[in-house]
């Protein structure tokens, strides 16, 4: 079942007034339950593509479809709601909110959804136990290791049962052992819960686990037609 489809997506942004083509004629489809990796060297457009898939950015040309619906020209507020309800994000620098504890970080997006205190607390604790991070519940990010923070970030990304989780170079700041452990975790979530993951990475450990791989070079998919 198709979740995301990009049709002839171009992205041109201006760098100090000079137009730079970040993406060129991208056609891509991602199906439910997939474990997709978008690989490529630095500057190839991986993050830009991930941002467009995640509706954090809009294409200059082309169309983006989410569950068959064209979301290219949706209002900012509508895109916020889409991100809140349907997309989870994992970032290279973890990006947990520093003033909140691990538990509160996980609860935060549920609060935005308007879930009652008790329900979101229960849900957050459950996911923390599943990811084996329950003991971090009351710790703030500055008291956690990088690997622990990234596990909390994973919990935050999947707690609302999103349609897909986008992970932008999630292992880049982690040592090999921690990175593998984190990838094991995400693979487990993919297999057991059928959560769709889309990674941008040039890390071999990530690429090796891909069920589907897109290789980007100079803003273009160079391995096949993107389907």
């Amino acid at each position, binding site marked *: 079942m198709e979740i995301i489809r990009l049709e002839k997506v171009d992205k041109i942004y201006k760098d100090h007034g000079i137009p730079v083509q970040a993406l060129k004629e991208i056609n891509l489809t991602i199906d439910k339950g997939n474990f997709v990796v978008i690989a490529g060297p630095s500057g190839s457009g991986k993050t830009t593509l991930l941002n467009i898939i995640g509706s954090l950015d809009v294409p200059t040309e082309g169309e983006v479809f989410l569950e068959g619906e064209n979301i290219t020209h949706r209002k900012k507020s509508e895109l916020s709601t889409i*991100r*809140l*309800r349907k997309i989870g994000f994992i970032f290279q620098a973890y990006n947990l*909110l*520093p003033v909140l504890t691990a538990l*509160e970080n996980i609860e935060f997006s549920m609060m935005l959804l308007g879930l009652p205190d008790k329900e979101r607390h229960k849900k957050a604790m459950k996911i923390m136990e599943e990811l084996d991070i329950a003991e971090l519940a009351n710790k703030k990010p500055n008291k956690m290791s990088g690997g622990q923070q990234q596990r909390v970030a994973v919990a935050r990304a999947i707690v609302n049962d999103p349609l897909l989780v986008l992970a932008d170079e999630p292992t880049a700041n982690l040592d090999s052992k921690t990175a593998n452990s984190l990838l094991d975790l995400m693979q487990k979530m993919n297999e057991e819960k059928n959560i769709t993951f889309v990674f941008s990475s040039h890390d071999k450990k990530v690429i090796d686990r891909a069920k589907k791989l897109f290789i980007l070079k100079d803003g273009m998919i160079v391995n096949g037609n993107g389907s």
Partner: protein
Amino acid sequence: MFFKMAIRNLLRNKRRTLIVLSSIIVGVAATLLYDSINAGMINQMLVNQINSYYSHIQIHKQGFNDNKLVTSYIPDYKNVEEVIQKQDYVRNYSKRVIAFGMLSSANSSAGISMLGIEPGNEKKVSNIYKMIIEGKYLSGKSNEILISKKMAEKLEVTLGDKVVAMAADINGKVNSELFRIIGIYRSHTAEFDKVFVYVPIENARTILGLGDNVSEIAIITNNSDSTLSYKKQLVSAMKNAGVESNEVEVSTYQELLAMIMYLIDIWKQTSIIIYLIIALAVLFGVINTMLMSVFERVNEIGVLMSIGMRNSGIFRMIILEAFMMGVVGTLIGFGIGVLIYLPLSNNGINLGMYSESMQTFGLNNIIYPALDSNVIINSIFIMPLATAVGAIYPARKAMKLQPTDAMRHV
């Protein structure tokens, strides 16, 4: 969680928050004290005028207030008096005769406003009897006179001395009467002390040839705040009793003391201006603080946007942080202001060193600050509002961030 987050965000840079908070605390406490002292002064000015002479409502012949002629006595005052007696909001009233003339001693003379009063009733509508500093209040016997300390000094007389009062009667004939000084008073108003003397009403009537007429009836009501409504009721009752409104004039103290009421208005407006000036200073402090706070958190704001927080949520979050600073600062400032205010309102502020100036404005030496609803409303609402308004610009800046750009921000 929003509140928890806002508090924690404010505590991230304690020193910066404390600086803004201090400016709010000092601003609220200082303006509360300034305002309460002002309110106390103006209340005192008003109360002194009401208690020393004006009372809550005065009744005269129509036109008396514009031209105080001896011939302008209240027509058929007994009918008016009957109406007054029937009003349940009238606590006390007293009849007066007013004459303008001259008071002479063996050494000097001075122009006077002679108030012929019923000593017993007058005690219930004014507190002139409390202002006696030498001798005693009128006993009710004839030919007793009460003069001010200032007048005594001018006429070079003292208790027990004789003085002669002269005034033109209703036919224009100048009459005189010998009085013995029985008491010397000192009111809170220098201008009042310069001219007012008190004599028994019968003596005043004799000098003026008024028969048993009166020039003025002073009324104290049950509630000084309702005088305008009482006036309407009284006018209507008098009309029903056959007293024509074009013959008798009913005036409230607000009308009689127009200058003081005007001062109260000016004070209210000035105090709002002062609040706004302080609020403006706080507002710029808040703009600066919240802008720094937003710029420090660009990356976090990007994350919040990416996980689905709407722009309106970002806006509310920034406003809430500033508003909380405003509320906390206001509560502490208000608390400190009240803590300073309480002993001052009980013991007063002694401004005896400015005694003469104070008396010129009808004030006592000791001022008792007063917390009226105006002061409380100004103190409580203006600062939180100012902080919230001050956060609008930084909040709009935060809203305009693009999540992708914001998350790249280091």
